[in-house]
């Protein structure tokens, strides 16, 4: 649906979304906020909600947030579109990507 309210906003940095949270799985514990080396996240003002991605451009893609997360499936690393590696199935020749 098209937004009715329009605001003047700057462009968002690239990549926009280094991780994807699953709201249903996230327990809002902020472990990822605590272990992120680059301090990409801040706690969500609403308790229990996934953190806010404040500095997506600073993500090192080290995956510590995912590795240390106590809630399975709550957070997924999302490679930037221009860095997604491809592969080919040996038997069929079918091409795939991250």
């Amino acid at each position: 649906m098209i937004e009715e309210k329009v605001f003047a906003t700057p462009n968002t940095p690239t990549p926009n979304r280094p991780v994807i949270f699953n709201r249903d799985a996230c327990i809002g514990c902020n472990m990822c906020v605590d272990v992120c080396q680059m301090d990409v996240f801040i706690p969500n003002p609403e308790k229990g909600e996934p953190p806010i991605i404040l500095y997506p451009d600073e993500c090192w893609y080290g995956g510590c947030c995912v590795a240390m997360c106590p809630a399975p499936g709550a957070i997924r690393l999302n490679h930037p579109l221009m860095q997604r590696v491809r592969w080919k199935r040996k038997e069929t020749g079918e091409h795939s990507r991250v």
Partner: protein
Amino acid sequence: MSQWQDYAQEGKALKWPYPVRYGEERKVHTDVLVLGGGIAGCWAAISAAREGAKVAIVEKGATIRSGSGGSGCDHWLNTPNPCSPITAEEIVEKEVVSNGGYTNGISRYIAARESYETLLELEKLGGKIRDTEDEFKGADFRDEETKFLFAYDYENKYMFRVWGTTFKVALYNECKRLGVEIYDRIMATSLLTEGSKHGTRVLGATGLHSRTGEFTIFQANATINCLSRHQRNWVFSTELVGNATFRPGTIVGNGHAMGWRAGAEFTQMEKTGGHGAGTGYSYPFYGTGNPFCTWVPCTMVDADGKEIPWVDRDGKVLKNVSGRTRPAPGQKFLGERERGYQWMAPHLPFDLGERIRKGEFRLPLYADLPSMSDHEQRAIWGLMVGEEAKTKIPLVKTYTESGFDPSKDLLQSYIMMRGDPLGDAFVGMVSPQERAGGEGGDAGGLLVDWDLSTTLEGLYCAGDALFAANYHYHAATTGRYAGRKAAWYAQKTAETEISRNQVEAEKMRIYTPLQRKDGLEWKELNAAICRIMQNYCGEPKSDELLQIGLIWLKDLEETALQRAYATNPHKLMRTLEVFDILTCSQMVIHASLARKASSQFLGFIRTDYPEMDPPAWHKWITIRLEEGNVRTAELPIDFWGELKKNYEKHCSS
């Protein structure tokens, strides 16, 4: 809503979630202060605490996973051990000869002597170093008795394959158990010195909290610099900031810059290499099909499935996979990636690029994991790629969830197509102007003696901050060594009063960007530094170019940096990082001006002194700051003297 722009879209601004305490002071007293809580830092802290010292770690990120090796480690290199005939002396000889003499004889020898006991100690702390579950029983690279797995040279067994994702948490827990005080999210900003003078004893450091903006004064009898080295001097992607470096983005040369300002002596700062890893747009490191490092000895094929041959040091084609991990006839042992003939490991042909251009192999190339034996396939994909830093989640987990199956799929290589982290350099496709400084292997760093003491009393150094240093095993062992040395020094030294003037001056320096209402943000400043370095300190160097480079860096310092502004503690930290990047860039140019000769080993091309590695310049060039003036000096290439004798004289108290 999980992104800031969701709030912006609703016309809301997000409040800063942490209490803001700009300028407020906190004081910490300790015996040993460890700057940087990565691999070297944690080992230093553990080792100093075991000697009875009160220890504090200052870490910009979060110690539990910080540093280049925090997320993992695939190989523990250069380690004489009961399964191997290789000695510490042979290992250092390999390093020295392969690097044309430009290696850190002191730290490499300490590392070779203490690496095995460090590894066993790590196991006691909970690090996994053996195939205890017998996942690789019967593998070519396994010692059945000890269950150790080895990499690269299966005959000489001196480079271990390890489960490095278990290491950092184990070290962190041991720090906690020993009562080490850990100060996370604090960026060390300056060294405190006796009488606030250059070149005097180091009395601790100052720190800025990157969430609250609070100022901490750390007073210590001994300080250890474990802050790694300079990065982002030539290459900076404003869009992929964190992913633009091989080592974590927290590493920018804070330790080098503060050491320089305090008057410490550095060497090898002129060394650079081709930048394959982190131009910002490269594919993930180890995440493309390739035959290097973690991926040895993977078979590579072209678009038609035609195999690319592996060759030995004489260019002789190796007929089977087994030959890729064994010395050639007459060769004593293999290095991990040495290009020097004596220890050169099997590799793809050096003229691969040319042969692709001529049509012998059709692009794209692929890593043929499905053709590898079960042991090799799982050792490459799962163990090496999986336990190495930045590989378990970003590669194995993410690729697997996207459907990648190492038993069925050919992972694409980007060799000759741009963006292959190691392949670009292999076929000579890296930009000559976008140099790798600290991003590369051995870089410039602090000059140390056999105590791993710097030229400033009370300041020790370990890990990648050391000159001509590299690798996880080396960071661990030198950290462990420097930790005990610093603890012994601290025990016999009295606490000295720090200078209030020095504290005030530092507070003024670091908080100034907050006082401006507008100006330039840190990213543009970093990018501007990189352009100057690319233009005037890229591959072709000359006195003229370097002098112009200094003029423009100074100009940036006096104009743009005076307009730098930050609007929260996080951005203030990033701004101060860029100040340090500028300082490190100036250090590189000063060192480059002082070396008036080209050197292949240092990636150093002087168009005004084109002769490569003339014998008269086979020496170390050192730089330091004295009362605002740059002093250069030189040291004999083997200034460390007799390795065994000197190590044994210094290794114990």
